[in-house]
């Protein structure tokens, strides 16, 4: 009993706003996954909401563990972790399970599997935090900047190859904001952003111009295929621009999600009463995962959707608050990375459900059904807490 006392004391010092908002979101996730699968039941023996509950409990264990483990110990092994993540990303391309036209999973046993790309987010965050905080390295030149960029580009390329554009895209703002916070000149970052925009413009041009200009599409397609762009990306973008082009096909999810959210109105139709969801207009395959926000917005209305948004704002804000108070650069960088990762997931996912962005397949942290990301999200939050309970400078380094 006595041996636990200092750990419990440490836990008492944690960032409670972060914990409370994360727990609230997780509970909401379980409740609305229940609602999203209510009408048709689950094809598996264990209903989805129950499985999500177990994921969440596992997540809490991970959370406490990552809180107690000193983040500096993790940083010490950042290189190994990074190499392992890259190895897994390469492995998934070889032995991964294909779902929805992409190779994202490594099956461990039966239906249990992991998504290496989710863990890669943490690995890259840790590795980048360490390398950006290396003492004596001036970040003002191009060379050190590009060296660190290469750290990000390798896993991004592997994730693109799966292909999983949404996840790949998350790495870039995460890395960019970590660099920005650590003092890289904004002009340099702006240059990189402009270059990135030019690159995406080139991809979009290759996707749509040959057809518009009525020239051969094969060479452009081959080039696009090599960088991981598939036909369904093209259709998703088309479906975003004009959802009525093929309302039963690509544009369907977007239209139905908008109708679900819009018809929810101010206070919503009530829990288990979301007709868009119950009648299957919001497709049952995506309602508990990528479109869980539509279910909440339909059943709880504007009040509910803004409440969820506020909880995420609180979550992200308290992570950044910890970043501001962090005792060292690596802690600050880790918290920034976690906040950025969560923020972009939330922003892109919500924008997608309300029709502001194309359908990308990025889950909503803590809310969307899924084990890998649930664990990763809690681990990331645990790292923030690990920084938070060690704010005082005089605290000696201990692994746990």
């Amino acid at each position: 009993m006595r041996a636990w006392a200092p750990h419990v004391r440490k836990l008492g010092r944690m960032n409670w706003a972060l914990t409370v908002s994360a727990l609230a979101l997780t509970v909401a996730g379980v409740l609305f996954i229940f609602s999203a699968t209510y009408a048709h039941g689950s094809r598996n023996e264990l209903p989805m909401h129950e499985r999500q509950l177990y994921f969440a409990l596992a997540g809490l264990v991970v959370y406490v563990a990552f809180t107690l483990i000193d983040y500096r110990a993790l940083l010490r092994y950042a290189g190994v972790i990074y190499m392992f993540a890259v190895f897994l990303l390469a492995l998934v391309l070889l032995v991964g399970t294909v779902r929805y036209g992409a190779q994202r999973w490594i099956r461990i046993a039966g239906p249990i599997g992991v998504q290496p790309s989710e863990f890669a987010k943490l690995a890259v965050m840790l590795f980048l935090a360490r390398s950006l905080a290396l003492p004596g390295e001036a970040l003002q030149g191009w060379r050190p900047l590009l060296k660190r960029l290469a750290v990000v580009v390798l896993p991004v390329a592997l994730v693109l190859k799966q292909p999983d554009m949404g996840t790949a895209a998350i790495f870039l703002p995460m890395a960019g904001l970590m660099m920005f916070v650590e003092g890289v000149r904004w002009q340099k970052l702006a240059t990189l952003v402009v270059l990135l925009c030019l690159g995406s413009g080139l991809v979009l041009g290759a996707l749509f111009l040959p057809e518009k200009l009525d020239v051969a599409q094969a060479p452009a397609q081959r080039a696009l295929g090599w960088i991981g762009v598939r036909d369904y990306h093209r259709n998703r973008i088309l479906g975003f621009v004009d959802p009525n082009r093929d309302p039963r096909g690509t544009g369907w999810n977007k239209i139905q999600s908008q109708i679900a959210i819009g018809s929810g109105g101010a206070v919503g139709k009530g829990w288990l009463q979301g007709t868009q969801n119950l009648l299957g207009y919001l497709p049952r395959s995506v309602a508990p995962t990528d479109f869980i926000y539509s279910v909440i917005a339909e059943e709880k209305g504007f009040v509910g959707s803004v409440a969820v948004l506020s909880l995420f704002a609180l979550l992200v804000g308290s992570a950044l608050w910890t970043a501001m108070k962090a005792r060292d650069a690596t802690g600050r960088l880790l918290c920034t990375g976690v906040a950025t990762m969560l923020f972009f997931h939330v922003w892109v996912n919500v924008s997608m459900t309300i029709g502001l962005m194309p359908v990308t397949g990025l889950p909503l942290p803590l809310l969307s059904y899924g084990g890998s990301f649930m664990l990763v999200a809690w681990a990331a939050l645990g790292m923030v807490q690990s920084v938070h309970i060690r704010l005082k400078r005089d605290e000696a380094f201990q692994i746990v």
Partner: protein
Amino acid sequence: MASNESKSAPVWRLSLVLALMTGAFLFLAGALWRIQIRDAAAYQGDFNRQSARRVRLPARRGRILDRRGRRLADNRPSYGVAIYVEELRQPGRIERTVEHVSEVVDRLAEALGLERELSEQAVRDHVVRQRPLPLLAWRDLDEAALARFVESHVKFPGGKERIPGLDVTVESVRVYPYGALAAHVLGYVGRADPERWRGESDADAESDATYDFYKPAVEGRSGMERAMDRTLQGEGGGYLLQVDALGFKHEELGRREPVAGRDLLLALDADIQAAAEQTLDGHIGAVVALDPRNGDVVALASTPAYDPNAFSVGMSHRDWARLNRDPGRPLVHRAIGGVYAPGSLFKLVVAIAALENPGIGPAQTYDCSGVFTVGNHPFRCWRRQGHGPLAMRKAIEQSCNVYFYELGIAIGHERIVRMADALGIGRRTGIELGGETRGLLPDAAWKRRVMNDAWRAGDTCNLSIGQGALGVTPLQMAVMTAAIANGGRVYRPRLVLSPRPDNPRGQSAEDLAFSSDRVFMKGDLIADLGWAPATLETVQGGMLDVVHAAAGTGSRAKLDGVRMAGKTGTAQYRRDGEDRRFAWMTGYAPFDQPRYVVVIVIEDAPGGGGLVAAPRLKHIMETALGMPLSSERTGRDTGS
């Protein structure tokens, strides 16, 4: 330490990041406000549009009653077995649901001992196109099969649970309790084309809410069913369904009951109608009976007829083809759509036209030698030896051709045509039925136009005895006779007593039926021709003699104790290279206070009007007047 030097820089940078993220969240909140508050109604509308289906329900069809309230057309319940597809849906491809439903139909057929009526394709069509509606596996089940369905729990082989989604449905089927009686007047119904209601919208819902599905409804295809279809049809109702993303029924959201169609009260009297049809039995012909006081049509018969019940449950192509190919053309309504040379019946028109002409009186006499020559063409009297000198009344009684040749030439064909036209010959009478024809009243202009020839004296001779191009319908002859009986008033023949355009929401048909013997409804007067008393006296007297004089051509129609006026006719025509004749008779009774006019025509008759038509007319008149029926039906040929 490095952190010392960069302490202040990260803070403003982090603050900027925090501000930007907060701004981004606020932006999302703004977008949510736009969708969930500002445009919520539009999205709610989108949701309703994609998930609501309106189904039109037909109203109960109005009944058709005879003047005494007897149901000539009614509705009967028809029980069927319905399959609620949404309760049998299978996950995966829709074809699996089709197969499953088909399997259920097989199980049902086995359990009920019925032959399967729905093909696999019919099941597929329903599941693909009409998914939210129940599928009718059998219609019109007999009681035994129905009882088996209600009592047995239909299960899958080896299964324990009852197959879900099965129920009994009731549909309304049109039925004609008297069978073929008045078939041509009543008409028949057929499955209505939903296109008909395409523009109709659900009055309770938003203005643009038209129906998505239409429950099978019938519409009148002929006769009264067609002519009064709007009245009988009533006002359709509907129900609102919520369907899921695959189009299966989720639940019923609301219902608006249809408003039943109004009953129709006809002037027809089923007893007189039955007597008329009975007298025509085995012949091709038509009977019209009407009330000369107001034009009420109490019988309107045409033979051969058909059983309209055969149409109600759907007629096979073979039966339909047989009806259409029948040389007797049973679908033609001869009483209003058959065109016949009126023969001697038309002499009444010539007589009136002459008498209304100053200079010719009842005493006008011509000598009949049996033949009348125009140019070098002889026009003969039906009595070869001639009638000798006759005055008008006698000429009518004897139906002397030569007398009317002379008379026609004397007054000229224009006067005859004018009088015929005033009596409605060559025009539609305006009875409330489709399929009425005009007939043909030839004049000089017609002959110039059609034959490119001048009107000649021979044409006048033919016209004077109701031959030549002249063609009339039995109904026109009845209207003409009614005018003679009532003193010169031409009424529009009337079949519908209620509801009428001038009184669309008045007394209900049934109430009116049980007071109709006392309530005498004013007729629809087209013209009062204002004939001189002498004219009427002569023509009516001649017609009285036709029946009652010893040598009258229509003496076989004579009634016991009731005086009747009449006129026989026999018109020659050629068909298939053979000489044939129409046997006609028109009559009204009682002579002093006429209540009924009866006209009968028989095609391809074995004898003239006096022989073939007169006894039949008598039978109908006896029925109409409520007299004991005499048994004599036919007799010796007396000519006409």
